[in-house]
């Protein structure tokens, strides 16, 4: 057994135990760790924002750049400043400008990308290809998948009563959905235990030195 002599390791271990104490019940140790964590999060965000956005994207090009086009950067700055109008009662509506600009641009470029990733690739993968019948078992599997995709989509059909064929199909769809949820749940268990193992290795190895 080699207990760590590094004060930082002790701090980490104490904070770890403070969070775990929440499993028993809420207590001042947890509350301490929780609030420290939230504070660190805010501070961390600010530091990162400064070094990674403000300095390289804004300050460096404006202060040290030479290209005349750098002054265009003042347009988004102006838009960003408009957002601060929210603190004034009279001009708070000005925030709608940067919001609208931001929302419009981001949703605009996400539309075609969503088509490709969410719809085209998934639809294409579902259409049965010649190679998917290379053996009977593969063929059956792919047909099972095809039925699953179609029935799941029908479950998300909102503008018709789920009766008759649509009702039956949606019912099959929910069976597939539950099966998938079960699979995801079972698959996830592993990841979560990995995390616990990671923390236990820290406590037992790095801190207490019980295991090698």
């Amino acid at each position, binding site marked *: 057994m080699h207990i760590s002599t590094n004060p930082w390791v002790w*701090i*980490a271990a104490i*904070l*770890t135990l403070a*969070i775990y104490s929440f499993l028993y019940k809420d207590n001042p140790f947890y509350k301490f*760790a929780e*609030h*420290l*964590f939230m*504070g*660190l*999060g*805010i*501070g*961390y*965000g*600010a*530091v990162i924002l*400064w*070094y990674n*956005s403000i300095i390289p994207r*804004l300050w460096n090009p404006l202060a040290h750049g030479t290209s005349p086009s750098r002054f265009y*950067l003042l*347009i*988004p700055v102006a838009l*960003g400043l408009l957002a*601060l109008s929210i603190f004034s009662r009279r001009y708070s*509506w000005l925030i*709608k*400008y940067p919001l*609208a*600009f*931001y*929302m*419009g*641009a981001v949703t605009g*470029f996400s539309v075609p990308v*969503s*088509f490709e990733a*969410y*719809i085209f690739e998934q639809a294409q993968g*579902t259409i049965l290809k010649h190679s998917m019948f290379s053996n009977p078992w593969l063929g059956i599997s792919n047909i*099972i998948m095809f039925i*699953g*995709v*179609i029935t*799941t*989509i029908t479950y998300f059909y909102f503008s018709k009563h789920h009766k008759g064929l649509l009702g039956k199909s949606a019912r099959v769809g*929910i*069976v597939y*959905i539950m*099966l*998938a949820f*079960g*699979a*995801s*749940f079972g698959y996830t*268990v592993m990841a*979560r235990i990995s995390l616990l193992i*990671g923390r236990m290795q820290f406590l037992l190895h790095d801190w207490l030195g019980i295991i090698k």
Partner: protein
Amino acid sequence: MRRTFPLVIAFIMGFVMMIQYFIPHPISQKFYKIMVQQWLIIISIFFYVFAWRSFGLYHINKIKRRKEGWWASVVAFVGVFFMLLAGFGDRIPGFGNFIVKYFNFDDLYNYMFAPLQATMFSLLAFFIASAAFRAFKARTLEATLLLVTATIVMLGRVPLGASLWKGLPEVVEWILMYPNMAAQRGIMIGVGLGMIATSLKIILGIERSYLGGD
């Protein structure tokens, strides 16, 4: 001016960003680059002010009124102070070396921030067990399917499952590759269409809840 003009801006930006996807010409690509690499990032910087303000007001209020557990709000500010000190402290004249040596950003990150994150996340190992125990009851056909697949997959994902029955990992792989994927795809296509419909409504100015109602 107050209501219509922002919607016009959203429409123009949305439309332009949408069609630039189809235009390989350098003019379109350059426009795209300037937008996404500079402008949008710069605009988003300013919104952080709201976050800081809300955080500050919430905790100051607690401390001022000496609400129950107000000391924890002091701890929250200590956390902010620690991070700022470690992040910017090296610039303080005559003090910078001390900070770098005993209170540097990496240490603070690795021994305070990171363990908190990882421990909080690892609570899931406990919760997943208690949730499975409580919720996985064979009440209906759907619930039975859920718990049976979950059990099979759990067993198949560890080496032990393969020692029990050699074919188990393949069965699990099959479940994940076919029925599971079918439902995932169905959900994805649905969400994708819903998202695109929402995006179109934003661009066309029909959806405006983000502007805080009318």
